[in-house]
């Protein structure tokens, strides 16, 4: 009975929308994200450089790289720990092909040549990682991609001719074009915001496009998809390639924001923190990684002072992160976004009953 009622309400809603104009309904359905977008656009007006760079910039960059993981894990069922490595490789390639303080390694290409080169190499690596792990299933993916990520960390640490070993690259400038210095806080903020919003929108679009739907089918039942005639492995590898593009762009922004890259940008702890960001935010929706990144960046920036303020050792920050992660994994597997959804659903259902 209740089901029928909601169905009627639904058709009624569509009817009014057709008469009253699609636009207002579209606006009211996407109110939250539109408000967020407006807030982000106006954020530089109210925020100082510290908040622009250290909080908003980091949140969106880590969010983007984590988004590529969320896409693979949430829609493809493949938890790849190699996404930070893809991002790091893109960052390294920007330093190798572009400009850095190390003339004996860097090739000093202009940014419009170095950026595509870095993306192509990183995406090739991400696709290779996908091709390697796509043939195995589930839990093996974590093992293989973690092994890849850790190998890359040790490679950057001990390789001097290309990765400049322990010290990595410093003073990698963001480019100048259209007469703007994109390394300055406000332009950099808008550039990061543009790419973060773009990647969010593209992931949302792809998740509803035929490719994304097929990928979700592969996640839920690969054998049935195979039987229907889909090429399961090809879908998985294509998903890796797509995710690698997002991660690579995130990695380049990371280097421009940070002005340096070293093995510790791609270390095992960073790789794991990225998974934590994705899982804590929630793998079910592309906004999840950004929420997770915001929480992580806030904790990283302020937990030290907060821990000291309550009389604990500020250096135990990692323990705090680990405990928080454990709590989320144990009690809300779909992350903070999942908690929010459940609260919203409960509020809606109680609203409905009170109305009746």
């Amino acid at each position, binding site marked *: 009975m209740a089901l029928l009622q909601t169905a009627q309400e639904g058709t009624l809603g569509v009817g009014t929308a057709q008469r009253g104009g699609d636009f207002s309904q579209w606006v009211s359905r996407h109110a939250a994200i539109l408000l967020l977008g407006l807030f982000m656009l106006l954020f530089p007006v109210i925020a100082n450089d510290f908040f622009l760079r250290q909080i908003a910039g980091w949140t969106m960059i880590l969010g983007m790289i984590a988004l590529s993981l969320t896409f693979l894990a949430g829609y493809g069922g493949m938890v790849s720990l190699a996404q930070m490595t893809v991002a790091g490789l893109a960052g390294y390639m920007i330093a190798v092909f572009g400009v850095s303080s190390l003339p004996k390694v860097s090739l000093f290409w202009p940014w419009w040549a170095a950026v595509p080169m870095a993306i192509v190499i990183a995406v090739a690596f991400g696709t290779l990682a996908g091709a390697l792990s796509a043939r195995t299933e589930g839990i093996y993916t974590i*093992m293989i991609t973690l092994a890849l990520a850790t190998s890359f960390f*040790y490679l950057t640490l001990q*390789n*001097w001719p290309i990765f400049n070993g322990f010290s990595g690259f410093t003073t990698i400038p963001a480019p100048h074009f259209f007469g703007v210095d994109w390394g300055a806080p406000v332009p950099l903020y808008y550039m990061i915001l543009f790419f973060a919003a773009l990647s969010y929108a593209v992931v949302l679009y792809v998740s509803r496009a035929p490719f994304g739907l097929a990928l979700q089918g592969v996640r839920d039942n690969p054998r049935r998809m195979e039987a229907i005639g889909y090429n399961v492995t090809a879908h998985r590898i294509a998903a890796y390639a797509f995710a690698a593009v997002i991660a690579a762009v995130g990695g380049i922004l990371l280097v421009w924001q940070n002005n340096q890259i070293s093995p510790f940008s791609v270390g095992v702890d960073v790789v794991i923190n990225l998974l934590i960001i994705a899982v804590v935010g929630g793998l079910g929706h592309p906004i999840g990684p950004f929420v997770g990144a915001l929480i992580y960046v806030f904790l990283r920036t302020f937990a030290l002072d907060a821990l000291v303020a309550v009389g604990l050792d500020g250096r*135990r920050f990692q*323990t705090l992160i680990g405990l928080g992660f454990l709590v989320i994994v144990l009690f809300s597997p779909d992350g903070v976004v999942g908690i929010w959804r459940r609260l919203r659903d409960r509020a809606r259902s109680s609203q409905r009953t009170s109305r009746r």
Partner: protein
Amino acid sequence: MSTIFGDDGAAQGGGRGDALGRWIGRHPIWALIIAVAVIFFVWLVLAPWPTGFEDVLGKKLIFINALFNGITLGGLYFLVATGFTLIFGLMRNVNLAHGSLYLFGGYMGYEAGDLTGSWLFGYVIAFISCAIVGIAMQFLIFRRMEGQDLRQTLVTLGLSIIFSDLMVWVWGGNAIQIDTPEYLEGPIATPIIVAVKSSGESVFLYYPRVRLVIFAAAVVIGIGMWLALNRTRVGVMIRAGVDDRDMLSVLGYRVQLLFVLVFAFGAGLAGMAGIVGGTFQSLSLGEDSHFLLASLVVVIVGGMGSIPGAALGALIIGVSEQIGTVYFQNYSTVLSFLIMVIVLALRPQGLLGRQ
């Protein structure tokens, strides 16, 4: 679907020799190539090198040292990876906190050795303390989320972060070296000729006694585990559990007890390996992820859940790492990485793994 148990031949009661004979009969050319390679390799190790060789590979002493270091390092990797693969095979649990257990065992062994002055007593303490942590993990957490592979793995990840942070708190970030006991100190002469002096006198290889002893211990442990798995009642239960957990528990065996036992044993082995690692190299921040990586690569190359596979993988990775460090300094990790990629491309289940 047994993966713990690498070779089909012995499982069917045919014995190893028969299986080898059949394999040679089926692949005569490959068998010949492998035989020639093995003979060449043995000659390379035992005989003094002609001058042409030294131009390409450098001094024989360097090569032999790298080879021996690789083999003994393989013994250490085997000790770490075998617990990892055993836990994975039986419980489908990828224990990403395995590296932390290794480091924890090493630190505990160091403390125990410091207090009592006995290196061997450290092994007992390391085994027991890591086994207790393992039991606690299995009993308090994994028992509650059986069959949820991904969640279990994420939990082990969270635990590894907490463990490593707490260990930095207690033992600090500096490297700790565990002293070799006096009775194992110093080099031992081996019958391998590394060079011939101009007077015609042969120079023999001297190699650290402790590394050879530990390698022998690793081999003994490996054979012991193989025997325990294949000849004892608990071993039969473990193999049955790997094949079909539910069936085993339906038959009235206490599967949960078995899980706790295996987790404790695997964790304890990792802890003992920690002391070996502390004696060979050193214990410090970051060694946990180093040995987690080693276990991952060894298990991926050797075959997931297979103990003979872990032995083979450990040997391959240990030798390739050491040879790589000597001959291609800047790319030595790429070598083990390439081995992993090739194995994954040709045999995704690992060299001795089963699909």
